């Protein structure tokens, strides 16, 4: 693999996001949501409960809960965005015939695919880090609540985006853009449901049901990473079993182990390699 064609394709891909005004639309909408939620969070310390102002502790607790909800929506947006970006990135070019002229050049399929991946992954990472950081900052300023590990949370959310991006890209080397997008989104949702089921199983000490969660976290680490993000966002005391609401997708009893993070990274690389192989074997 050589760097020049890789960089050319990555640059082309990122430029397409700009030219098609995707970046503008996403940033504009995100800014709106950030402004709205920022305003909402700033109102929390002024709320009354039974005629009295919320204590700072209670306000922070409420803020943490609300933040988890917002970040849950955000993780969905990141996952769907990743799938929507990746679905046409390879399949669309193959279907339209644009890939014919490009792949006839001295460029390998691996360079083409990894270039595509980089050109989508880097903007996605930037988007996740930027918007999550702004949100965390707004919450801290408005309510005084700061997630215990914001950087870890952003990394986990970005990782979840990469999982979806890579999975969709791999699917789109064989399926149509539409189909790969839909399949990836369904898998995303199914993994999330399986994760909820698994948490339920763990709470009730049902090994069969909790295995569903474990298997789903190993099959596609999207929900596993979301839960890792939750753990880094929620107040430390949420993690203790008594406070952790049974099976809730908005709380986690433990963070991701280093082994799981390594696994998730390896998963992404492996699926990317599979995508290269799949594209390499296919007719253009």
């Amino acid at each position, binding site marked *: 693999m050589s760097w*020049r*064609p890789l960089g*050319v394709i990555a640059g*082309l891909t990122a430029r*397409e996001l700009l*030219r*098609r005004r995707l970046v503008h639309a996403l940033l504009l909408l995100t800014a709106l949501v950030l402004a709205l939620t920022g305003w909402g969070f700033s109102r929390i310390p002024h709320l009354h409960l039974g005629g009295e102002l919320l204590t700072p502790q209670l306000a922070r607790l409420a803020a943490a809960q609300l933040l988890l909800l917002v970040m849950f929506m955000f993780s969905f947006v990141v996952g769907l965005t990743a799938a929507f970006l990746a679905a046409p990135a390879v399949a669309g070019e193959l279907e*339209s*015939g*644009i890939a*014919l*002229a*490009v*792949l*006839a*050049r*001295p*460029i*390998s399929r691996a360079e083409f695919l990894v270039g595509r991946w980089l050109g989508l992954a880097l903007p996605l990472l930037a988007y996740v880090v930027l918007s999550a950081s702004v949100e965390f900052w707004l919450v801290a300023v408005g309510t005084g609540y700061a997630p215990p590990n914001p950087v870890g949370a952003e990394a986990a959310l970005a990782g979840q985006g990469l999982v979806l991006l890579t999975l969709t890209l791999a699917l789109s080397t064989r399926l149509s853009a539409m189909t790969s997008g839909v399949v990836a989104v369904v898998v995303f949702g199914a993994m999330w449901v399986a994760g909820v089921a698994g948490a339920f199983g763990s709470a009730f000490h049902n090994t069969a049901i909790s295995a569903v969660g474990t298997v789903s976290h190993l099959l596609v680490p999207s929900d596993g990473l979301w839960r890792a993000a939750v753990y880094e966002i929620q107040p430390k005391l949420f993690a203790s079993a008594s406070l952790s609401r049974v099976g809730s997708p908005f709380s986690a009893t433990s963070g991701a182990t280093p082994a799981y993070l390594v696994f998730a990274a390896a998963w992404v690389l492996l699926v990317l390699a599979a995508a290269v192989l799949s594209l390499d*074997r296919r*007719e*253009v």
Partner: protein
Amino acid sequence: MAAAGVGGQPEGEAVITRGLTKRYGSRLALDGLDLQVGYGEVFGFLGPNGAGKTTFVKLLLGLGRPSAGTGQLLGRPLGDRSARSKVGYLPELFRYQGWLRAQEVLTLHCQLAGLPPAGFPDEVGRSLELVGLAGRGEDLVSTFSKGMQQRLGLAVALLGAPRLVVLDEPTSALDPVGRHDVRELIRRLRQEGVTVFLNSHLLSEVELVCDRVAVVDRGRVLAQGALTDLLSGEGPRVRCRDLPGDALPGLGALRRDGDWVSVPGLDRSRTPELVAAIVAAGGRVYQVDEGRASLEERFLQLLERA
């Protein structure tokens, strides 16, 4: 004829295939194709719809893999990357990034081809000029008409002085002027010693520019060779009346077909002798046919026979 190009052509052939076969499921798209194209030749690849022309070109460029057989492109195995850096390709399905400007598409291909960046603007300007798109470089590709997009595809194929230019139905969307321009372009490439591989079913076009042709049908080569050889073969015939006898002195036995007479086995170069002999024998000549079949006739004959 071919190897005498400008600047000295390399040894060997620009394209060689041996038993090149491609299956799509149970359909045989290419059935053991043996083909040879010399450096500097303008080669016409002819065949009816579905004959396998596009499939062949895709295998040459590594866009698909052969099911069997081997081949070389510019002296390298099929699909080899370094060979592809010296090839310009206009696909049959020509589509370029609609959200880019024409000159950006060309710059992209300069980059992908690994040309020296300092030369990009000149190269882009030159190729736009060549295909008659000068002044439209700033326009978005999505605003181009179909014919303009095909011209852009030609410009892409001509970037960076390629050794081999592969054109798959290059005039399918072009107006008569555009077709003429493409013929001129191909002639110009020939003068520069560039090898041209032209897929087409527009026989008149091929007849006008190609040195050698191959006729394919259902994945098999029916005939290949120099255009002049392929088109000769029938011998001269003369439409005349009042010609007595069934032989001409010095030429041989006559064959009659209505008013048309000919001497089996007579070479085209002896057409004037034939006419003189007929006139001398008292025949009145109305029409002389040198016996050069049109490519269309030959093409239909070959397909019928197959």
